[in-house]
């Protein structure tokens, strides 16, 4: 196995201003070339970590098709880089790899539309932020208000957000406007271990910590009038963005399956350059078990965001009153594996699409997109970093051809948490954000410092690459009014 080395500009072929290729000849064990969507500025950061070498490793996966892709928010992960995308052909010995999906299964984003303008909200904003901060636990070790027994939890794992509607939380509309309607039907709750279930039992309705947050925003600028209209977004309208995943239940599920696949790699004759790429043939019992367990954990995350969405409604009603309508625009996953059909070399193939720190971006006419959105494609929700812009994009027809119908997921880190804490003081950051008129509700200044915008790539840059590459197109930009996050 070749020793790891830094990949530099001279190793890349420029396909366009926003697309670069590492040819298959670069390393002997690559089965396909690797492609990264980036501009020159982003590439400079990318060369500083190991993410491109990791992308080359992804290109060695059995059954991988076309290219190992990376989105412009690419950064170093373990196994797959964050922002990595790989399609493996099911009928060609294609594998499924938990590392290509992530420990936080179905980490994703939900965006709600509120029938208020930012000006109308202003007098209530501080109280509302406080109310939401208390209503929706965030940070470490904070249990949720809903404690599920084993039977209830099994139903949530099987039916995801649908189960929450049955229990009286949220609406049918919340389901319709959600990827997979908030339920992957191949989920098998019996494959979630007792340990994972114990962890998840009191975590439904919680945000977690790290880069997870809830943001109250306003629509700042409209780039695509037609799509904005179809999505029901107007200038100065208030939106609420929820970013979180499957909590301890999902993390444990990934850990369990990584541990169970690891010793079996020999029996499938799979040799990998990195242990964290551990995988199983999709058709093997272990591959099937992981996919069906992953779906159950994904359902938990959708139930989670669905419930948090309803509690946002409850908080709004408490502080402002019930004349306000809050509806779900859409909910997307950015750590997930899907069975999809794609045209590859003139043939339609069934693949396992791995998106880790990458968001599906299906275009107009796709059956997976809610019928109301089909004329313009699915919404793609891109959270910015604290105090900076977030975006709503729309999937395009070209996206399937160019990048397997995929877009970025956010800005992507460029500085470690340790370095960020040395560079930024949490209390100073809080003051700076408040000086911009952004209300912060967080009980950890240290947690704030680590999430400082300077620690991330520029989201404007990342989104402009996605737009230019035709992976997805800009629809609106959102700006934060209030940020609620845990430590």
């Amino acid at each position, binding site marked *: 196995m070749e020793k790891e080395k830094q990949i530099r500009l001279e190793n890349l072929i420029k396909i366009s201003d926003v697309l670069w290729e590492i040819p298959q000849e670069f390393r002997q064990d690559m089965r396909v070339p690797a492609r990264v969507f980036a501009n020159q500025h982003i590439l400079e950061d990318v060369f500083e970590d190991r993410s491109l070498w990791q992308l080359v490793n992804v290109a060695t996966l059995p059954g991988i098709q076309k290219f190992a892709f990376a989105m412009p928010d690419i950064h*170093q992960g373990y196994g797959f880089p964050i922002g990595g995308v790989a399609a493996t052909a099911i009928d060609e010995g294609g594998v499924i790899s938990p590392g290509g999906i992530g420990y936080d299964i179905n980490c994703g984003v939900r965006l709600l539309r509120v029938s208020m303008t930012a000006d109308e909200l202003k007098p209530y904003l501080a109280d509302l932020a406080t109310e939401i901060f208390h209503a929706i636990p965030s940070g*470490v070790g904070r249990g949720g208000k809903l404690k599920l027994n084993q039977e209830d939890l099994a139903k949530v794992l099987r039916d995801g957000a649908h189960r929450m509607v049955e229990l009286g939380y949220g609406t049918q509309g919340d389901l319709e406007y959600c990827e997979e309607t908030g339920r992957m039907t191949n989920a098998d709750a019996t494959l979630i271990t007792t340990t994972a279930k114990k*962890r998840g039992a009191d975590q439904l309705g919680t945000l977690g910590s790290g880069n997870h947050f809830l943001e109250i925003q306003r629509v700042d600028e409209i780039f695509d009038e037609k799509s904005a209209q179809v999505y029901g977004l107007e200038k100065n309208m208030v939106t609420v963005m929820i970013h979180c995943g499957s909590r301890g239940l999902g993390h444990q599920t990934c850990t369990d399956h990584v541990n169970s696949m690891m*010793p079996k790699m020999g029996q499938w004759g799979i040799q990998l350059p990195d242990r964290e790429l551990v995988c199983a043939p999709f058709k093997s019992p272990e591959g099937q078990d992981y996919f069906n367990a992953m779906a159950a954990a994904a359902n938990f995350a959708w139930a989670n965001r669905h419930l948090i969405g309803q509690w946002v409604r409850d908080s709004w009603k408490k502080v402002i009153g019930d004349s306000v309508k809050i509806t779900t625009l859409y909910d997307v996953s950015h750590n997930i594996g899907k069975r999809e059909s794609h045209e590859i070399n003139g043939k339609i193939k069934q693949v396992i699409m791995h998106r880790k720190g990458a968001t599906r971006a299906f275009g107009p006419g796709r059956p997976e997109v809610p019928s109301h959105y089909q004329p313009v494609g699915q919404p793609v929700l891109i959270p910015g970093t604290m105090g900076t812009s977030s975006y709503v994009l729309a999937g395009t027809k070209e996206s399937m051809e160019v990048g397997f119908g995929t877009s970025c997921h956010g800005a992507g880190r460029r500085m470690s948490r340790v370095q960020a804490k040395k560079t930024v003081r949490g209390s100073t950051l809080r003051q700076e954000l408040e000086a911009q008129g952004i209300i912060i509700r967080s009980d950890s200044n240290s*947690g704030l410092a680590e999430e400082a915008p300077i620690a991330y790539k520029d989201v404007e840059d990342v989104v402009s690459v996605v737009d230019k590459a035709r992976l997805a197109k800009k629809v609106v930009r959102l700006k934060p009014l209030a940020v609620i996050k845990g430590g």
Partner: protein
Amino acid sequence: MHKDFELLPHTADLKIRVYGTTLEQLFRHALIGMFQSIGPRSKNCKKKGERLYCPQLPQQHDITLQAHDLTSLLVSFLSEALALSDIHNEAYLDVVIHELDQNHIRATLQGVPIEGFEVVEIKAVTYHDLNIKKVDGAWQTDIVFDI
């Protein structure tokens, strides 16, 4: 005094380097390093510098694990401690190891109830850069945690 662990730079996650004169010490320091580096908050304990000091560690859990090899065993050991921490809202700042070999560990985790972690929550223990080796006669490894 021998160093037990230190924090290393890493772009998106948490990385520590762990040292031990024996394999038992390596496992013990890995556990201590994992919990101390995320800033546990416990009203029964005092913060001194970057670390938490507890006069007693009353929360005890016996664990027995099997694994394919030493690397998997370390990951399983830390993962089990992490899961118990999440379930019980505790942090384990020490461990008594009764048995340890390449494929098997039997130990008693010792910890305290916590109100939370000041720094961050660990999602998982990864295999990334995990390479248990002897350097100058002592055991050493890096461990990357997904956060």
